[in-house]
């Protein structure tokens, strides 16, 4: 692990998962890879945290899961965003944007 890699910021993992799944259904590793790629390696996702988060989101009703074959015909658990999940993503995104811009403003004022 290099120093540039950081664990996902506390509390944002759910949002990242929901966002990733809003594009297409994916399995656990697919999500991890997508998060890593899009963040250009800034965020590394730990499988323990990720799979636990997936269970939590599934139970919250934001995701549905089903066992399917991957392109190399390996059985894998694929997650799909549900309608409530989509709504949740919108809420979290709005909330995040609000906070992030507030922090950005604060930092700018300080600087």
């Amino acid at each position, binding site marked *: 692990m290099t120093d540039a890699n950081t664990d996902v910021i506390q509390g944002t993992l759910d949002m990242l998962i929901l966002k990733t799944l809003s594009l297409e259904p994916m399995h*656990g590793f697919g999500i991890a*890879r997508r998060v890593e790629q899009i963040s250009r390696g800034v965020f590394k996702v*730990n*499988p323990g945290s990720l799979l636990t988060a997936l269970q939590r989101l599934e139970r919250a009703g934001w995701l549905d899961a089903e066992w399917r074959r991957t392109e190399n015909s390996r059985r894998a658990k694929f997650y799909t965003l549900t309608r409530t999940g989509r709504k949740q993503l919108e809420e979290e995104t709005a909330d995040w944007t609000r906070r992030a811009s507030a922090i950005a403003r604060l930092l700018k004022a300080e600087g």
Partner: protein
Amino acid sequence: MSLWRQLTYGLRSLMNRAKHDRDVAEEVEQYFEEAEAAWRSRGLSAKDARRAARLEAGTMAVAKERVNSYGWENTARSFLSDLRFAGRQLLKHKVFTATATLTLALGIGANAAIFTVIQSVLLSPLPYKNADKLAVLQTHWTNSGHTKVGVTGPDGVDVRDQAKSLEAVSLYSGGNLGVQLRDHSVYTVVTFVDANFARVFSLQPIAGRLLTDGDAHHAALVSEEFARDHFGSTQAAVGQMLQVENEPVEIVGVLPGNFDFPAQTRVWEAFPLRPESEERTAFNYKAVARLRSSATFQTAETELLGISRRLETAYPGANRNKQILARPVHEALTGDTRPTLLFLWAAVALILLIACVNVTHLQLVRAMERQRELAIRRALGSSSRQVIQPVILESLLVSLVGGAAGVLLAFPAVRVLVAMAPKELPRMNEIHLNGWVLGFTLALSVLTALASSILPALKAARVDPAETLKQDASRGMTRQGATTLRDGLVIAEVAATLVLAVGAALLLHTMMALAERDMGYQTRQLLVVDADAPAHSEQDAHRAVRQFHDIFLQLAAVPGVTQVAGIMGLPTGAYGSNGYYTVTGAGPVDVNHSPYADFSVASPGYFRAMGIPVKRGRDFSAQDTDQSPFVAVISESLAKQSFGNTDPLGKQVQCGLDSDKWMTVVGVVGDVRQDSPAANPGPTLYMPMTQHPYYGNQIHIVLRTEVQPLTVMNAVRETIARVNPFIAMRFTTMDAMVNTSIATERFRAALISSFAGVGLLLAMLGVYGTMAYTVAQRTFEIGVRMAFGAERGAILGGVLAHAAKLACYGIALGLGLSLMLARLVTSMLVGVRPTDPISLCVASLLLLLTALAAALAPGWRATHVDPMVALRSA
């Protein structure tokens, strides 16, 4: 939605653990495979790819562990596994489990049974609409502190007309009466009610209609049960005719079966709103009232106080010091039984306490046995919580099983209780186990579990691994603290049991005192017939009295009967009257304190038939008729109360029974205990039936027999029916009546004795358990002593002495407690002081013997310790 998912997903994983684990494992494996594949596609060898993936994502096992530990079901699972462990432990220690469960079943069962009665009688609201607004009117004399349930007719009307806080007031009267149906007559409770009665109770008939003021003396309502029993159905009863006191009455409606006021009433006959008794000194009515929804008992009381003041000013003679009170119906109905029930509750609470102490003790022994296990757990790093949880769970399991067994025990117990209960116990038909009782039992079980496991749990939490692993109880190396605690529990148990035993001894002593009491008359060989001859007018009443005198003559001829007489006001009987009287000729007259006496109306020969001695003067005779001068016979107490040492014969007496004619005292007879053996002999004024015919048609006929009284019953019935088939009859014996009159005392004594018995049993178990444990622990030490030549007697003596010492401490503590609690039971004792030394001694001795008996078996075992075996096995 999400809560639902939480629940179903959790349950699914709980139900099918294997599948859940497989799924998680496969998902994690697939993740790692993909990660390796990704590294390989970047050009690493298979081995390096695996290493890189591990480096980046950690090990699969850790990931699986993390994913698996998500969800509420994991907490549940650890709880369940602890529970399973506790269950297995309990199954393994069968003696402990059986003893503890049984002990708790007894304690909780007794509590559930008594609570059932208390809940149904005292706590649950009365089954009337807005029952909390129902009031009973009482008359209270501020000077004497005396309170009478009921009002005089005119006072009742004044309250009805003036009290704004009362929405409706109803006056009623009545009692056990003969009711004539088309072809037979029955004895039942008839209540005469005015048209307001139904308004007060918000009654709805289930057939027909309610009563109006125009119905007075013509119409009646009957209970559902009465309608079914006598007419087949509720509908069929409407329109039928009854005769009550020789008046034809039409049944116009039927009231639902659950309405039972006044208790046991089957027929409610309409009486006019304007009461027929116009006297402000004759308490002929009882009264119920409904408070307005805006009013409280407080405001009603204040208003009634004002009305009472005005009446006192308007009628300074009759209403002096008189105050009319409104009391909640619930209180008035159940007030008398409250002390008895609470007393019983306290007794069963003590039993539960003893049971708890027993179980605590058992748990302590268990905890001591598993001290090494706990110590090892602590040494391996278990937290306090992890050590305590199984201990508490075990105890919870035992109490829940005990509680369930207790509820099962409570079903028959409640049935026995209701069967044993005196018939004065109100709301008896409402007593049944219900949700409240189950809830109470559950709460009790949990509480018991906590109470009995708190000490063992604390001890478990304090287990010091290093210390515990060093000491070895089987070699006689135990800390002093453990023994002191166990001894303390035994002492507490003995003390609590002694309190119960003292209570039982006191009440049993009371029963013995009551049984030995001289009633003032002979109760043996006396048949009693409740006889009600229908009479309405004065002529009817005179005819009934003449008829009864005929009947007495004919009954005297029945074989086996030696004496026959009639009486209104038989001791312990259903009919009776009492009130103030005045005398002339002797004694100081105190206008404020008119003397008070029981009134009885008797036929000639009554005193001889009853075995009441005539001390002076004469009995009534055939010459005392309604045409001759009025006469009276007085009891010795009355003579002493009103005439002191002067000769009462020839003095004049007047009372307000039915006529204000002056009566000449012609005889003095011995006192009787009027209400029950518990009553003190008091003043009684006897008057002849012929001169008071209004009280002569509803009487008890007493027959002194040479044979078993009930064997002449049929002959007596036929004889009476031959003279007048419309006389309603009921048979009993004087012995049975006296017996019934102390039903409450007997009920209390029987219950508290059985509770004391249970307590003794539990205490015995407790002492036995402690002694057996101590002996087992000291086997090594005893072995050493015997090897050095200790006598068997000395060893047995040592064990017994220890038990006796504990018992004596417990007894001393219990005696102190008993003396403190004694004044609470004073009102339940007759002829026995609460500090009665005999009862205290008997109870103490019983406890001491129980303790010694319980210690005998362990002591015996101690003397049979084989030194060789004991020393080698250690």
